């Protein structure tokens, strides 16, 4: 777990040098809407419909090849699929043994089908969402969310959270390493001694928030960080959203 969130700030959240999704997904706003529509239509597929689920893989695949996304990063993330899902899929495998079709010597059970569908849905829905968020720098996502009338408290919160995540994670990593340098075997890594380490980090965090606040109001801060006013949806945005929804609907009807 400790490595999971470590370098995320730099390696997954889209950078400015990464491409705009625009030619295919319109603005950031429509891109977010399209990905929500995608996930929703994918997950509405019934539990035996494997071919439909696979067909929806077209969306992430198209984005990855068209926008030249780093597929390696997406795959690496997908490899960390939660064991919870695997467990649930395995549950279906064992519980539903009704035979569905026979391939000469091999019997395909209902459980095999539904387990595969669960697995494939997970992979494809996550790949679809990641290939959208990978195109857009985080602050632009925040702006887009603002355009959807998310409460400004939450938008400011997201921006600050993202800014300080990597800083604090690096500090947490250092402080944990400092402990490990002076611990041997499990001596020194006990919960109660570690709690003081988390506590110190917490103190630094709150102190930092205070100084940050000073530095923000010194520059005219009044409760929210508005760098650029967000626009609302344009008709071009709606066209893109409409087009993709038609496509998703077509996939749903064909398969």
């Amino acid at each position, binding site marked *: 777990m400790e490595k999971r969130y470590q370098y995320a*700030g*730099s390696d997954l959240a889209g950078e*400015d040098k990464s491409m705009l999704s625009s030619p295919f997904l319109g603005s950031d706003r429509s891109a977010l809407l399209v990905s929500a529509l995608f996930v929703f239509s994918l997950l509405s597929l019934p539990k035996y419909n494997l071919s439909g689920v696979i067909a929806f893989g077209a969306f992430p695949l198209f984005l990855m090849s068209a926008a030249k996304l780093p597929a390696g990063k997406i795959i690496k993330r997908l490899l960390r699929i939660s064991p919870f899902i695997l467990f649930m899929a395995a549950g279906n495998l064992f519980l539903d043994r009704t035979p569905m079709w026979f391939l000469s010597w091999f019997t395909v059970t209902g459980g095999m089908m539904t387990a595969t569908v669960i697995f494939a849905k997970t992979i494809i829905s996550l790949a679809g969402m990641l290939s959208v968020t990978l195109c857009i*720098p*985080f*602050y632009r996502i925040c702006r887009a969310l603002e355009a959807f009338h998310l409460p400004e408290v939450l938008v400011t919160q997201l*921006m*600050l959270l*993202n*800014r*300080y995540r*990597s*800083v604090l994670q690096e500090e947490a990593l250092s402080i944990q390493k400092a402990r490990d340098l002076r611990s041997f075997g499990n001596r020194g890594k006990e919960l109660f001694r570690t709690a003081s380490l988390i506590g110190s980090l917490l103190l630094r965090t709150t102190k*930092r928030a*205070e*100084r*940050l606040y*000073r*530095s*923000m*109001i*010194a*520059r*005219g*801060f*009044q409760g929210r*960080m508005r*760098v650029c006013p967000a626009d609302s949806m344009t008709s071009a945005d709606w066209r893109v959203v409409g087009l993709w929804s038609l496509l998703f609907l077509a996939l749903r009807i064909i398969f």
Partner: protein
Amino acid sequence: MISIEGLSFSWPDGTKAIDDISLAIAKGSPLGIVGANGAGKSTLVNHLNGYYLPQKGTISIGGIRVNKKNLDQIHRTIGLLFQNPDDQLFTARLYDDIAFGPENLGLKADEVTVLVEKTLRELNLWELRNKPPAHLSQGQKRFAAFASILVMNPDVIVMDEPTADLDPKNRRQLINLVNGLRKTKITVSHDLDFVWDTCERVCIMQRGRITADGPAKEILSNRELLEANSLELPLRLQR
């Protein structure tokens, strides 16, 4: 410009960090504050912008009392460079960070653009404008924090250990930059050579009190005085 009168401050655990300090700082004369570790220097300068409020005594800046009511005005007058630049940069792009202050001051968009570009170029940060502050090196971060203050054009600039972690070349550039600013400047530093190069007046602090106050060159070449206060001659005067 700044007047401190009978200021005292104790931490909740009883440590007396500032002990009855009175000090007047004239407009335009750069002041250095030096002294041993734990002398109370940071605690003192953090009082100037209201980060801590006086427990006893008063502070006023350009005629305005530092208290809870006036904080807004105080923050506009004084720019404080924190010891840790990560405490000062909070947006996703360096550019946005520098533009944050002027925008909130209500400047027009094109004025902001001109001002921000000028400041960034002045500090060699223009190329880095699209980088997230978290991806800058320590020295670049310090310059960026400095830019975020400079761009607000405050009357008073206060710097707490501005040269820590700077390489010699960046340190030299900071000296030139600070000397080019026509403002009231207060520097807290253990780098006595930096103080020698940038300040006209020096105060020495010890255990929460000011134990010496005078022209920089005079104080900083007085070996006995310095050594009595846990200090040494600037390195250039040593051989």
